[in-house]
């Protein structure tokens, strides 16, 4: 074990400490908070990269599944049941922390420039964003599901605070609320799943104990495994914005652009993917859940891509793209898990889906952050507009931004040799691999392939509309390239998009992430990797998707690429009904609003009415009944003394009757 691992908890703690420090800085000194935030995240990035490097190059091949773990008490229910907090470092953790912290660092640095105009409010911004990064890293490093849930919720809190950063804008406040509530809806299932696991799986949700083949088998035979995994995927659907919980992520664009980059690229949305990857030993024994994950992912991949075609908001296009790309990851993970579940325990050896999912996560983090930051740079230079119809022709003005964004777009579209190509094709290949076991995967693969085409179309639509053609922005806007502190991260990220795929695949064959499912199959070599670039290139399906990617770019170019952004093609399409469906995002926002208003508020109003009229009405009715009877009894006092005498005589009669009756009644 590497001694450095003892300090690995710092990876998560350092941004959180930064947050604590920032909250103590007087708000009159925002500059200081920037420094603290950058340093805090930089420490984690440095530490995680260092650990990655050491583990990878140093004694990489000898690393045990659980490299490091420690814990402190949280709640102890009984002798056998307790939940603790701790950290857990294995390959997945190392990879994820490295990706998250380094991309976050770049985004934080970028923010220093982007948020410059915010003045004293930067304190809040940098404080929260440090916290956000910290809890995301905590989520990754948690050593049990319960702790994961803690950070999971805190990530939600961070997103709430960041999306609602401009809280005085009603739309921002609303979007923040929506993000929180919708993800919480998913989290509810996750919580349910965790409680379920905690209750049935020997009262522990520690990964180490949970993933023992014996405990997984026990879970499986108890019948709760499918339910638990499905429930947990509910959480993942919320956080990773999968159909039908995707809509919040689009609204979340109300936050500052670096926040979007953070949420989409580095942190929040990856949490769902991470969860499924982390729970792989469980998913790979739950075929129904695995299939469900894969199907939802593939469908979302295509579905979101169509919506991306229908929007002119530059950030929203990217948001849909994120949703779509996350779908690919789930598709790959689910397919891999399904295949594994069809193989006997202990002899499973299919790691393509898993590797592809994680690989794509990593690549997506990079190119999505790049795209967002570049988009932010565009907006920054144009003075804030997000509407692509008011852009165009920026290529010459924003040279660096346009080039870096092109890199990002190419990667996203899956053009060789950019990183996105490798991971996306691996994902599609994984889906295709599932067809051997279930015909459903054919459909899934079809979704994926159509999605790939659409991806290329919409991202180049974005690029062409923004940078190509003639300027459509008002002439008085003075367009200028962003400051170096913003441009530098762009360049770094662009380089990464170019090299990451080749490097990882070439150097390591993406071995590191493959390790994980080996827990389930101790007999198989932990390095049962997929065959790297060569394997991919040897497959005809790859060429199909590559062709589709190029075709997509071509379509884009033909429609938007020749400076005809406001052209007939667009205006014609905009009138068409299909297009309006896309613009309205398949009416999902309306549906959510209706749902919120009808189910949430409507039922609430109904219940409130019921509460005040019926339940409280009965209470008040009892009171009124007493008043009523009081009035009647009162009226019996007529003031006529003879009536009183009569009452006495009547009383005598009644008592006499009582005396006769009571023995009869047996009293």
């Amino acid at each position, binding site marked *: 074990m590497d001694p450095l691992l003892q300090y690995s908890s710092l990876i998560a703690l350092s941004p959180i400490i930064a947050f604590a420090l920032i909250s103590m800085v007087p708000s009159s000194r925002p500059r200081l908070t920037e420094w603290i935030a950058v340093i805090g995240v930089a420490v984690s990035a440095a530490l995680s990269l260092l650990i990655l490097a050491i583990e990878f190059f140093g004694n990489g091949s000898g690393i045990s599944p659980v490299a490091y773990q420690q814990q402190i008490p949280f709640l102890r229910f009984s002798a056998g049941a307790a939940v603790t907090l701790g950290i857990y470092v294995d390959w997945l953790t190392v990879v994820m922390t490295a990706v998250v912290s380094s991309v976050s660092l770049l985004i934080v640095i970028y923010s220093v420039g982007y948020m410059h105009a915010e003045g004293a409010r930067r304190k809040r911004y940098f404080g929260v964003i440090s916290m956000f990064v910290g809890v995301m890293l905590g989520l990754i490093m948690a050593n049990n599901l319960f702790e994961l849930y803690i950070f999971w919720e805190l990530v939600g809190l961070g997103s709430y605070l960041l999306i609602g950063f401009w809280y005085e804008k009603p739309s921002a406040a609303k979007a923040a609320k929506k993000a929180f509530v919708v993800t919480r809806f998913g989290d509810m299932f996750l919580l349910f799943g965790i409680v379920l696991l905690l209750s049935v799986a020997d009262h522990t949700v520690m990964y180490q104990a949970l993933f023992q083949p014996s405990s997984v088998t026990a879970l499986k035979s108890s019948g709760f495994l499918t339910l638990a995994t499905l429930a947990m995927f509910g959480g993942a659907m919320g956080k990773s914005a999968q159909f039908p919980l995707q809509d919040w992520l689009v609204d979340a664009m109300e936050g500052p652009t670096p926040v979007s980059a953070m949420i989409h690229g580095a942190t929040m949305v990856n949490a769902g993917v991470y969860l499924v990857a982390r729970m792989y030993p469980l998913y790979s024994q739950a075929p129904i859940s695995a299939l469900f994950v894969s199907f939802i992912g593939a469908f979302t991949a295509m579905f979101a891509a169509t919506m991306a075609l229908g929007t002119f908001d530059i950030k929203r296009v990217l948001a849909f793209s994120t949703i779509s790309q996350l779908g690919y990851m789930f598709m790959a993970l689910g397919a891999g898990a399904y295949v594994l579940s069809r193989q006997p325990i202990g002899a499973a050896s299919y790691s393509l889906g898993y590797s592809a999912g994680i690989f794509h996560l990593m690549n997506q983090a990079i190119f999505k952050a790049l795209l967002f930051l570049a988009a932010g740079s565009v907006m920054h230079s144009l003075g804030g507009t997000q509407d692509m119809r008011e852009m165009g022709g920026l290529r010459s003005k924003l040279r660096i931004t346009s080039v870096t964004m092109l890199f990002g777009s190419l990667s996203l579209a899956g053009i060789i040799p950019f990183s996105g190509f490798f991971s996306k094709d691996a994902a599609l290949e994984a889906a295709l691999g599932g067809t051997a076991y279930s015909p459903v995967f054919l459909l899934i693969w079809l979704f994926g392939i159509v999605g790939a085409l659409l991806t290329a179309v919409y991202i180049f639509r974005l690029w062409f509309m923004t940078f190509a053609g003639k300027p459509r922005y008002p002439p008085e806007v003075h367009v200028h390239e962003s400051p170096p502190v913003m441009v530098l991260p762009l360049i770094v990220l662009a380089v990464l998009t170019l090299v990451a795929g080749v490097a990882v695949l070439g150097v390591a064959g993406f071995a590191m992430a493959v390790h994980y499912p080996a827990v389930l199959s101790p007999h198989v070599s932990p390095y049962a990797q997929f065959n790297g670039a060569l394997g991919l290139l040897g497959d005809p399906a790859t060429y199909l998707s590559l062709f589709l990617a190029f075709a997509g770019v071509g379509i884009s170019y033909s429609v938007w690429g020749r400076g005809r952004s406001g052209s007939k093609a667009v205006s014609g399409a905009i009138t068409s009904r299909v297009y309006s469906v896309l613009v309205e995002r398949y009416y999902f926002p309306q549906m959510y609003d209706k749902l919120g208003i009808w189910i949430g508020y409507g039922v609430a109003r109904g219940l409130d009415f019921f509460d005040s009229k019926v339940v409280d009405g009965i209470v008040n009715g009892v009171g009124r009944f007493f008043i009523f009877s009081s009035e009647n009894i009162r009226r019996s006092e007529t*003031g006529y*003394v003879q009536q009183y005498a009569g009452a006495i005589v009547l009383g005598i009669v009644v008592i006499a009757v009582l005396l006769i009756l009571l023995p009869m009644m047996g009293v």
Partner: protein
Amino acid sequence: MIPVLDVTIFSAALFSVGVFGVLYRRNAIMVLLSIELMLNAANINFVVFSGTAPTSAASADGQVYALISIAIAAAEIAVGLAILLVLWKTSDTVEVNEVATLRW
């Protein structure tokens, strides 16, 4: 000797007449008179039961009770009439149902 049962029946009847009078008559004086009838009925009982007493002491007791009750009745009627007179002076009536200011 008069049979005890007959006398008790008579006293019960007298008592009932008294109760009836209390309820039936509106004039306060008549109400008083009816009450006196009730008391008298009780007195008759005392006297008639004293005749069947096993010991002479117990027998004497009954008659003494009757005397005490006569005394009380007399006192009662005196106080009652005094009150009625005051009532007459303040309300100008002795009809019991005409004074019903106090109610509810």
